């Protein structure tokens, strides 16, 4: 009797006794299935997104601030040079007083 039992087909899973038409038109959920969303994965994605927002803002701010400082320094020194090289006006005392 034992060999005969081994040759028998395993029991059909629940929900497969429908016809092909039923299966294509009626979706039945499996009860007790594992969760669709992994909490760990969602947590990691959330923390990565949060840090990405912060890091992008900090890096962009830093890069822009450095560029602004360089440009301000360059323009400041150019203005200083231009004023130094400018021919002095006829009345020297007036220009000194204005500065």
């Amino acid at each position, binding site marked *: 009797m034992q060999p005969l039992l081994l040759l028998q087909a395993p029991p059909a899973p629940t929900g497969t006794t429908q016809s092909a038409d039923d299966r294509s038109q009626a979706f039945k959920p499996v009860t007790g299935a594992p969760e669709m*969303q992994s*909490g*760990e994965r*969602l*947590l990691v*994605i*959330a*923390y990565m*997104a*949060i840090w990405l*927002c*912060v890091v992008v*803002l*900090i890096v962009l*701010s830093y890069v*822009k*601030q450095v560029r*602004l*400082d360089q*440009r*301000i*320094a*360059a*323009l*400041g*020194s*150019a*203005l*200083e040079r*231009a*004023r130094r090289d400018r021919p002095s006006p006829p009345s020297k005392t007036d220009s000194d007083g204005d*500065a």
Partner: protein
Amino acid sequence: MQSTLAEPLPEAAAAPPRSGPVDYGFLAMAAATAISFIATISVISFRAPVEATMGIVQKIFYFHVPAAYSMYLGAAVCFFGSAGYLARGTRGWDAVAKAGAEVAVVMGFMVLISGPLWAMKAWGVAWTWDPRLTTSMLSVLIYVAYVLLRGFTGDGDAERKFAAALGVLGAANLPIIHYSVQKWGGNHPKVITNGGGGLQHPDMKLALGLGFLSFTLLTVILVWARARMELSSSKLAELEQEALEEGIGGD
């Protein structure tokens, strides 16, 4: 920089200097923020217990709620900066308002990203048109509009005043976000309440408290950095104008 120019720039005095005590203060604040975040992450990861029903995904809460609070802070800074600009008309107030709006946008995106990730687990859907979710998104869109307005229009007085009006009116939505969940119900949980809230463990409360501290420091430092950058932009615009008057062209 200012001392090298023969004529002092009227707005340059408003810009914090690049060296000296202001920079040390900024560095100290940055260090405090970093330490606070390290402490917060340690407590969230190693001390705060996993929540019984939702599991580990509940730990999103410790950053999601402080980020929402920081969005309020940024929006409040934008409100006061805008009101100050409308009252006084100085570039300093305008810089503060713009910095506040930018921080509100970044914090708002954090809220709108982390919230749906939690909701996917807790509700089974990422988004519902719940009153608090809808009003929060509306508020973020208002500050996105502010930032776009500042980015794509000129930097004249009229544009700054228009943006300031938006900054003042945009704050009207903040109390609506806060009270929407109490007045109109919806799915959004009411964890933080006057009665002590739904955090059942002292380490959960510690993690949330540290989260609030970290995000407050982060908001302050981001507003500071962005306002300083805005004032530098103003100073550069004035120097460029001076350079044009002096006949210094191009680079």
